[in-house]
């Protein structure tokens, strides 16, 4: 990677890290997600600054150029995150269904608590 590229990636990672900290402070991001993205920023900055580490990773993944290795790593991280988010969203969806059903049932019970003997006839 050229020195120019190293500087751009390192500065970009630092700015991103700063933004993540701000979002976490405002509670727009939870601490767990904030920590994850900070680790990603740190990893990108370290790989950009330390040539030997990036060259090692490049050889490890079988890439020819260090930039290609970084792109591949970024792609893997993004796919992993998408799968993780799909799992989290599915779980939230199921929890939302349970809560909605619970609220509906509670509302029904409250509405009909004075009429326990009534059957739900039309």
């Amino acid at each position: 990677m050229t020195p120019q590229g190293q500087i751009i990636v390192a500065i970009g990672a630092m700015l991103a890290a700063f933004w993540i900290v701000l979002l976490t402070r405002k509670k727009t991001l939870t601490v767990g997600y904030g920590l994850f993205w900070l680790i990603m920023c740190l990893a990108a900055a370290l790989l950009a600054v330390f040539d030997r580490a990036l060259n090692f990773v490049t050889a490890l993944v079988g890439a020819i150029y260090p930039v290609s290795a970084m792109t591949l790593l970024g792609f893997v991280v993004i796919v992993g995150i998408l799968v993780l988010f799909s799992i989290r969203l599915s779980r939230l969806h199921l929890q939302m269904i349970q809560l909605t059903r619970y609220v509906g049932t509670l509302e029904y019970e409250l509405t009909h608590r004075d009429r326990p003997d009534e059957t739900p006839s039309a």
Partner: protein
Amino acid sequence: MGFTIQNPSSESSATSSASRGSDASSPTPARGLIIVPAFNEELGIADIVKRIAESVDQDVLFVNDGSADRTLDRLHEAGVRVLSHPVNLGYAETLLSGIEFALQHGYDYCVFLDADGQHDPKDIARLVQTLQNRKADVVIGSRFLDATGYKATVGRRTGMVVFARLASWITGSRITDPTSGFKVLSRRAMQAVSGKVFGDLHAELIVLLAVSDFVIVEESIQVSPRRHGSSMYGVLAAALYPLRTLLAMLIAWLEARLNRRNGEKP
């Protein structure tokens, strides 16, 4: 209503008898609940309330699925029992809410009836009678068992035929209308599907129960054209329906097979 279920299944019968403390050898009057899922049906909901009341003397539960229009107000005005979702959960989850209600309140069977006015409430008695007489767990109101003249678009009809063939092949028995929304489920079947995740409780429901040795029969019904509102399937949902149902059928089949191997009921 005077329907009785004579030993539809050992578990169902035991539940019915236990709940009433009656002699297990005598036929137990079965309590049924008509479950009507309603989403944005303000124009036609009063009509279906009236038609049900005129057709059957049976408990009814309307499940309002977070309608954005005045469906809930119309139901309250009609004085019927309503279980209301604060947000829209979808067709299958609405039916599952009805099933949970039926199980909690000790019903022996439930009837699914769509709120769009296409199903005739007068058919309910015949479907429930079939559940009783044939000792079935599920009775499907089929639009294609007899030549009823039901018309659908080419794409929809093709999908129905494909899923009917597929469901018949997987279950080993002839299923003509796996996408019908008009069904009767015994308590045993309700317990089996409760808490499960489905697509639309259509073909996947049949696969899950049939592979698990539940008795599924069909009874011919006639349907009317939709009187008000529009289909719950938008363009995207209609396009994805076959894929969603195929995946749901595969999962249902896998679950049923694994349960069978482990000697468990779903």
